[in-house]
């Protein structure tokens, strides 16, 4: 399964909806983990640094957490 996942990841043909969903899960985890270790709400830059993405990407991923499932996901997952 690892091999297949890596293949799917590498060929870039996965849909953005899925990649955003993955990133938003990572953002959620990083946010919880940083809140604990820092004992305060993390800054956007701290989450971005932890995940190796830009602050803007963190912001749009946070937004995606709130979105209702897209039609694509409802139909194909």
């Amino acid at each position, binding site marked *: 399964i690892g091999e297949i996942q890596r293949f799917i990841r590498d060929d870039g043909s996965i849909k953005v909806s899925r990649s955003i969903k993955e990133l938003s899960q990572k953002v959620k985890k990083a946010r919880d983990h940083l809140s604990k270790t820092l004992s*305060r709400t993390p*800054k956007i830059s701290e989450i971005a640094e932890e995940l190796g993405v830009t*602050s803007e990407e963190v912001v749009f991923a946070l*937004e995606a957490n709130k979105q209702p499932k897209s039609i694509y996901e409802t139909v194909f997952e």
Partner: protein
Amino acid sequence: MQLAFSSISGNESFARATVAAFAAKLDPTVEELEDIKTAVSEAVTNAIIHGYNRQSGFVYIEATIDSDGIEIIIRDEGCGIQNVDEAKEATYTSRPDLERSGMGFTIMEHLMDEMEVLSVLDKGTQIKMRKKIKKTAPTN
């Protein structure tokens, strides 16, 4: 930065996130960013459902970062508000049929440091909001 988009509800989340992405330059906490997003949402939703009554029109957002925070202006060219003081009251809504709470303005005032409503009947409505963002990192 300035953003203009058509008043379809699908654009509401895009607009809110775009303002948040711009505000990210100030390196806010997740909490501060959530406050900004919620306030922007309330103002944009008002523009779409009240200002344009769900008809088509443009919503304009202008955001500026300065030394102590962010200023956000949200504007529509819709129907305007007859009585702004009444509209700002915590439970007032002109559309009880939409099952909205009438709390939009109260929420904006609460989450932001300043809020100002400018409205002209049949010309449109402009909401100007400011939020201070502390630049310094907390000590812990």
